[in-house]
């Protein structure tokens, strides 16, 4: 079966099974080289294994919910969209959500995803109480934060390489409505954008769209978007009766792969220019429904196809606070010089993160996407080198192309991860196309 990551660049013929019981999962694991696949929303080759891809889509049941603590126990294949559909009407929302609701709970653990509230609340892992993990011998263990062998920590952000996640217990947050009070701030440069993030550290949500083609003094100009869950009292009178009901969004579908020339320097430049101009015009406060605020791209079904049949690659790195400004400036300079801007360049302040192997670190993260062609590959390699020089690291959920050398240089923790996998028999039982490429 031909499968790929969301970026569409890693298409590969894989043997895919769809187990329906724990015994079936154990039998697949016994064959070796197994990797669990959830919703297939990792951008690269993290959730595919030529020999043994284990699709967890049939493990899609919610098990229990505690309305006192907000603890939801769900099987790994449950989609975040289903969690929202079931619990937002009862006044609960995911405590951490990535930029799409079409992810699986297992995938959220494996990538230890972050959201627009990372600076305040940390990554998804901060809200995970336990993980039921099936190990190389088929035995199921309930992992918790205090585990002696740190398997809980290795599994959060471990990209599925510690075992097959079966169930997760994680906390939701109480909300009074399905609406977000959004405030947009225009920042004319990178320094202004960073200052705005620091000045708004108290905001629940913050994220900036950054014009990665602006040069000179305007380099790094951004629209910073802050958000707060609106209380019932903050809603206009006509919405107060049904605070969780939001208008149905018009869904658009990208029906086919766009031709390669549709996205070029000119269209990207025009888009970035217009987007910035719109942002300047609309700056200020507004009330936005949860779906449009958190998941703008979900409204365009199959948006990944706008990059054409060859697909696109993502680049996301994080810098520590000390070197963030220098690192980001160097990346933006390189990108604008190459003239290969990205439609969706996103800048975000990360807060403190204490975890074994997860991606975030206190500092700044920049996420970019590029249609795949030869020039992009060369540009990305230059971006890798800049990131390394400024002490940054890379997000494996986005990666489709890094070398093992780059990863190991960027992330000293990987050597320990590899040794742990060797020592515990995980290396033979669990591997993905990504882990093989990165020699994990």
């Amino acid at each position, binding site marked *: 079966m031909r499968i790929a990551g969301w970026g569409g660049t890693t298409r590969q013929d894989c043997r895919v*099974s*769809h187990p329906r019981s724990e015994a079936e999962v154990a039998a697949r694991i016994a064959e070796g080289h197994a990797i669990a696949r959830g919703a297939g929303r990792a951008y690269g080759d993290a959730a595919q294994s030529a020999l043994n891809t284990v699709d967890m889509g049939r493990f899609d049941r919610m*098990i229990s919910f505690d309305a006192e603590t907000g603890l939801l126990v769900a099987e790994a294949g449950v989609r975040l969209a289903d969690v929202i559909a079931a619990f937002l009407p009862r006044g609960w929302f995911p405590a951490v959500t990535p930029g799409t609701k079409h992810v699986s709970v297992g995938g959220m653990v494996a990538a230890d995803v972050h959201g627009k509230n990372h600076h305040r609340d940390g990554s998804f892992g901060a809200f995970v109480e336990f993980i039921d993990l099936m190990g190389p011998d088929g035995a199921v263990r309930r992992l918790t934060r205090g585990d002696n062998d740190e398997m809980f920590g290795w599994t959060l952000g471990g990209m599925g390489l510690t075992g097959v996640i079966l169930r997760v217990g994680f906390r939701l947050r109480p909300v009074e409505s399905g609406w977000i009070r959004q405030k947009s701030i225009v920042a004319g440069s990178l320094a202004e954008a960073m200052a705005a993030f620091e000045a708004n550290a108290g905001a629940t949500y913050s994220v900036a769209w950054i014009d990665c083609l602006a040069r000179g003094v305007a380099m790094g100009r951004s629209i910073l978007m802050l958000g707060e869950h609106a209380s019932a009292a903050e809603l206009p009178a006509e919405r107060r009766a049904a605070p969780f009901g939001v208008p149905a969004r018009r869904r658009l579908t990208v029906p086919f792969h766009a031709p390669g020339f549709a996205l070029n320097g000119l269209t990207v430049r025009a888009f970035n220019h217009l987007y910035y101009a719109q942002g300047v015009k609309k700056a200020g406060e507004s009330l936005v429904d949860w779906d449009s605020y958190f998941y703008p791209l979900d409204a365009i079904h199959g948006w990944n196809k706008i990059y054409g049949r060859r697909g696109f690659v993502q680049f996301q790195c994080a810098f520590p606070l000390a070197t963030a400004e220098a690192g980001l400036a160097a990346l933006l300079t390189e990108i604008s010089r190459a003239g290969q801007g990205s439609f969706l360049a996103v800048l975000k302040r990360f807060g403190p993160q204490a975890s074994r192997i997860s991606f975030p670190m206190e500092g700044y993260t920049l996420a970019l996407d590029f249609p795949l062609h030869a020039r992009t590959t060369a540009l990305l390699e230059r971006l890798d080198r800049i990131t390394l020089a400024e002490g940054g690291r890379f997000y494996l959920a986005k990666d489709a192309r890094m070398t093992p050398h780059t990863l190991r240089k960027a992330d000293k923790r990987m050597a320990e991860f590899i040794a742990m996998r060797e020592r515990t028999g995980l290396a033979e039982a669990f591997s993905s196309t990504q882990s093989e490429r990165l020699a994990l």
Partner: protein
Amino acid sequence: MTKGAVLILGGRSDIGRAIARAFAAEGHPVWLAARNADGLEPDRADLELRYRVEAKCFEFDVLATHRLEGFADALPGLPEVVVSVVGYMGDQQVSETDPEAAARVMRSNFEGPAAALALFANRFEARGSGVIVGISSVAGERGRATNYVYGSAKAGFTAFLSGLRNRLAKKGVHVLTVLPGFVATAMTEGMDLPEKLTAQPEEVGRAVLRAVKSKRNVIYVKPVWCLVMAVIRNIPEAIFKGMKL
């Protein structure tokens, strides 16, 4: 207003689960019936947690026709909708040489489901309302060398549903025949199915719900199957018999 219960015979199957979810999402209580009903507990709990409807499980074996009355009597009441998702493909080659195996395929796909729906049909008729849904198969539209034992049983089931519909049309009871085409389920796992012709179980669930609401008689889940089957049905037998399908 409380909505009527939906009984799903074969509630463990991927299609059965998907239909249960589609109706539960609309606020219908759902009753799942299958063998080893204890194993359905996670699905039952999921339905209640997700959709805040009442969900129950019942032990049911489609081949045990002598226990059918008892099964129906033990239900909390007469459901508003009964759906038969029961089916068993078997192995065509084994069915060709082993009459016991062939009988099992025929009984699982025709005799058992027909007997069960006949019982509910009579009770629905007496009440003057109800909806009967039979998940049959495009395999029943024309016998093919690769699965004619299964196909012939489904053909029988399709004809049975058609007759039931005819009989009950003026009695307030509606009968829906579903011919899903290829569906990505446990039954078809490992088969190399063409993507454009293959439905996900969730699509079947939504299609059945829509069809029940709009009182459709016969549906294919993916509209393209209507065309595919029109072509297959119309190939002259003299040509058809020489084809590899």
